[in-house]
């Protein structure tokens, strides 16, 4: 476990860096949190959604008469009405397949909304669903990525021949020379499954339409607003300021999955308008598992061009993503989000890459924790091990030979990523040491000799955070992009104000889902103003009418600990400047000569010439006219921070797809029961460098949570379908979320290489081992099974799958 500095502090020390327990806990531990389903409104009615039982079907007549006659039913909204009341959602590919909030004439995945019932309560609404008769004409379905592109595959959308939504090719560096120089080519083919983080709180929306103001009010546990707000306004055909979004203080987990919720906001907005009442819809678990959103599945083919000494000169890969029945923004981000860090922690200067995004009759996708970095690193880190094996070099050594060196930062990758800081070799060595790597390798040999299947797995990856929305532009060529407005940015805005007694209130819209933003804000402000965290209150209710939001606002891509905290510092500094000017006036001193600490502002050289901050604040509030006319006495500060590195893509398709880049090294050991294929963790060290750690207690929480998601994706979780597109994992009995018994103890260590881009030197860390653990576990399993000649190129590593591999290997003639 990490050693944590105590929460109390000595004079002159800072609050940042301390394990301050969270203020958010008090309401959450006592049942006083306010989650979406805890809100009620006068006249509120309840919606239930009729969903397609078919993966692919024409929708004929929908007979709603019997449903409308059921007492308590207030109205029904069908797909055709949705098409009449709204436009398809915009998405960054062209031509774009039409995607509405409900299926219109055809359903393209099991669980796609077909109609909405609004009733006095949810029970009655569900009764009414059973009374709706739909004339479905089933069509052949396709679920497999490669099958979807075949000539005879069922076609999902007229606009998208061969079911291809997006396709691009990129070349970076000098592939020709690299290929010539290489001694060998190592190849791999990897299949990464579809899974999602299934927050324990499902989606929820309350929508209320005011016909007189022609305005919608929405409450929802969305992670944005991000681009979702603009998309919904556009779909509804209204100006954005007529669509007020409020996000409750408490959200029961998001992990990117809740960015997939905006179509339901549009759907419930229309239901409210259609039925003339405010409408609440709380997704149930079954709906969530079949139809909300999960990450994409991906097929990757990769070639590594290497020298005999292990240097990797170039990568060539082809990756095919699958966004399901439609493509929904922010997709095709899945294919482009990690382009800046595509070569991981290594100095690989040449890359040739083809990406495809296809459609199948599966449910839609959203940026699931790690947002396809787990896919990328699964193939890249498996490749590192394969290269090591082919060249008979230790897998730790091969990584050390290829790392970007500490003195190369800031480092620009071949694809345009700008790595801000790091010392990968040092962090990795720390992890190896803690793991006792050399001795463990020795022990592994001995255990192998006894017939035990022991494997050690490594993964060393770069953790990007603070998305630069520019990467979405890569879905289009430079020439197409040039015709549109350029897109870029990562901005966050915060307001800080001080009351007449010198206490501070922070108005934020960072939209946390349990990351403890309010506590962190209070730590940061306290340091800046020389006051106590307890002197700072925070309101973090996102409200597009009352908060400073932008297209980048929201909680995703670990934005807060870097971009968010920098905005807090900027806002506090604005406020502080005003306080200093007033204090200078009151003390008759130059502003430059002033300093603050312990609730006071004083002259640096003559500390006895001091004034309490509350007196400065009191003067500013109570005696505004007593201060010089040209002095700004509004005791508030607004900070807006956009990372200076968030630039649009270049004409050569280079883009800095994120802004800060941390580092993770996993070193772990597993044992496989050869008889049952069951996997057990024997040891696990996880090293993280996320720059300055603001609150070690919360940091540890993010890391441990990331491990659990990584294990889920590697071993347990999959949104699985049969060949007809029927879902096999539609309940929590079959969709396997790891319990406390499946998660091992993980030894966390960290190194701090501050980021030059953020006020505190912090980077993001919210995705953490969700990105790296699947690769490391796969490498460990591959290592364990190597004596049997087994390749590991597919997840999840269920005992069933591992046992079949072992059995096939043992019965194959080569063995």
């Amino acid at each position, binding site marked *: 476990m990490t050693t944590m500095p105590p929460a109390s502090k000595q004079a002159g020390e800072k609050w940042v860096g301390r394990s301050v327990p969270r203020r958010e806990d008090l309401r959450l*531990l006592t049942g006083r949190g306010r989650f979406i389903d805890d809100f009620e409104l006068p006249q509120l009615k309840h919606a239930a959604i009729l969903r397609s039982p078919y993966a692919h079907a024409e929708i004929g007549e929908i007979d709603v008469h019997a449903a409308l006659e059921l007492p308590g039913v207030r109205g029904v909204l069908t797909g055709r009405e949705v098409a009449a009341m709204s436009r398809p959602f915009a998405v960054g590919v062209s031509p774009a397949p039409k995607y509405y909030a409900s299926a219109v004439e055809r359903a393209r995945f099991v669980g796609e909304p077909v109609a909405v019932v609004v009733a006095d309560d949810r029970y009655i609404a569900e009764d009414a669903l059973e009374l709706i008769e739909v004339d479905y004409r089933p069509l052949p379905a396709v679920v497999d990525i490669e099958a979807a592109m075949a000539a005879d595959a069922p076609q999902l959308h007229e606009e998208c021949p061969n079911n291809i939504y997006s396709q691009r090719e990129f070349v970076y560096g000098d592939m020709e020379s690299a290929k010539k120089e290489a001694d060998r080519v190592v190849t791999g083919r990897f299949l990464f499954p579809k899974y999602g983080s299934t927050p*324990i709180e499902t989606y929820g929306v309350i929508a209320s339409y005011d016909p007189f103001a022609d305005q919608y009010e929405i409450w929802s546990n969305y992670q944005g607003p991000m681009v979702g707000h603009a998309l919904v306004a556009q779909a509804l055909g209204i100006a954005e300021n007529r669509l007020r979004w409020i996000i409750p203080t408490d959200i029961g987990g998001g992990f990117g999955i809740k960015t997939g919720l905006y179509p339901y906001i549009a759907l419930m907005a229309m239901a409210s308008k259609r039925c003339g009442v405010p409408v609440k819809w709380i997704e149930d678990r079954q709906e969530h598992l079949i139809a909300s959103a999960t990450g994409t599945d991906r097929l990757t083919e990769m070639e590594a061009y290497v020298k005999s000494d292990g240097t990797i000169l170039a990568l060539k890969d082809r990756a095919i993503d699958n966004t399901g029945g439609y493509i929904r923004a922010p997709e095709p981000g899945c294919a482009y989000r990690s382009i800046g860090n595509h070569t991981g922690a290594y100095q690989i200067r040449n890359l040739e890459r083809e990406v495809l995004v296809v459609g199948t009759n599966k449910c839609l996708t959203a940026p699931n924790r790690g947002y396809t970095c787990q896919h990328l690193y699964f193939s890249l880190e498996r490749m590192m091990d394969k290269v090591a094996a082919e060249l008979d070099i230790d897998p730790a050594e091969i990584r050390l030979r290829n790392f970007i060196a500490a003195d190369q930062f800031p480092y620009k990758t071949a694809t345009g990523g700008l790595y801000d800081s790091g010392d990968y070799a040092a962090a990795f060595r720390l992890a190896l040491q803690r793991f006792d790597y050399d001795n463990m390798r020795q022990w592994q040999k001995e255990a192998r000799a006894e017939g035990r299947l022991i494997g050690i797995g490594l993964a060393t990856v770069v953790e990007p955070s603070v998305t630069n929305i520019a990467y979405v532009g890569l879905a289009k060529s430079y020439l197409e992009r040039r015709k549109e407005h350029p897109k870029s940015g990562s901005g966050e805005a915060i307001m800080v104000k001080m009351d007449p007694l010198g206490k501070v209130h922070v108005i934020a819209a960072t939209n946390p*889902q349990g990351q403890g933003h309010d506590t962190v804000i209070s730590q940061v402000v306290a340091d800046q103003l020389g006051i106590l965290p307890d002197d700072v209150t925070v309101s973090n209710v996102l409200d597009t009418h009352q908060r400073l939001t932008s297209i980048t606002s929201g909680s995703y891509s670990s934005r807060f600990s870097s971009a968010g905290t920098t905005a807090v510092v900027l806002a506090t500094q604005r406020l502080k400047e005003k306080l200093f000017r007033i204090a200078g006036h009151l003390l008759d001193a130059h502003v430059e000569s002033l300093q603050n600490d312990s609730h006071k502002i004083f002259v640096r050289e003559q500390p006895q010439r001091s004034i309490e901050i509350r007196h400065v604040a009191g003067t500013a509030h109570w005696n505004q006219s007593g201060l010089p006319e040209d002095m700004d006495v509004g005791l508030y500060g607004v900070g807006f921070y956009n990372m200076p590195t968030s630039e649009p893509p270049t004409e050569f398709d280079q883009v800095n797809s994120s802004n800060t880049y941390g580092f993770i090294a996993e070193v772990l050991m597993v044992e496989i029961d050869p008889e049952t294929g069951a996997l057990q963790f024997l040891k696990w060290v996880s090293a993280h460098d996320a720059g300055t750690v603001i609150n070690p207690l919360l940091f540890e929480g993010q890391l441990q*949570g990331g491990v659990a998601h990584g294990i889920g994706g590697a071993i347990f979780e999959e949104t699985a379908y049969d060949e007809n597109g029927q879902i096999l994992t539609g309940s*929590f*009995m079959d969709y396997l979320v790891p319990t406390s*018994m499946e998660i091992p103890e993980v030894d966390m260590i960290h190194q701090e290489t501050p980021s030059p881009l953020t006020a505190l030197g912090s980077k993001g860390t919210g995705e953490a081992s969700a990105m790296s653990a699947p690769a490391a576990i796969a490498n460990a399993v591959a290592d364990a099974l190597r004596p049997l000649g087994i390749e590991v190129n597919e997840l999840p590593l269920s005992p069933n799958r591992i046992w079949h591999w072992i059995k096939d290997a043992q019965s194959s003639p080569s063995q």
Partner: protein
Amino acid sequence: MRPVGRKITVTVNGEQYVREVEPRLLLADFLRHGLQLFGTHVGCEHGVCGACTILFDGVAQRSCLIFAIQADGAEILTVESLAQSGKLNLLQKAFHEHHGLQCGFCTPGMLMTALELLRENPSPSDQEVRAGISGVLCRCTGYKQIVDSINAAALAIAGAEAAE
């Protein structure tokens, strides 16, 4: 034959409520929307996630798998009962100090489960804690800090009892 009225009398967190209920109303919905005790959460409605766990006549049970009408005459404790006169109890305090929660959605079920666990086994091993809470899913914490919290609570409770 006892014809069944729809009126129930139920004691929740020491307070008695008399309410009319439709037989199919789930106890979780009754507590949340009928009594406005929103502390109990609903995450799956089929018994797996454990977010809805309450103490029903002193025993931890899923409130999504009980009909409110079955609670006639029952004594129920929910997460709202734990803090007394504005002060966290020792279990809540341990969760606070050891960061045993992030989004807080699983937390009510986790606390009620841990309460029963520590009552039956005041000094559990790590493995016993893990087994004890295995029926409550948490997607944020990775469980580690929850286990730390429960261990710390066990010590604190033992300490407080020794002091008495």
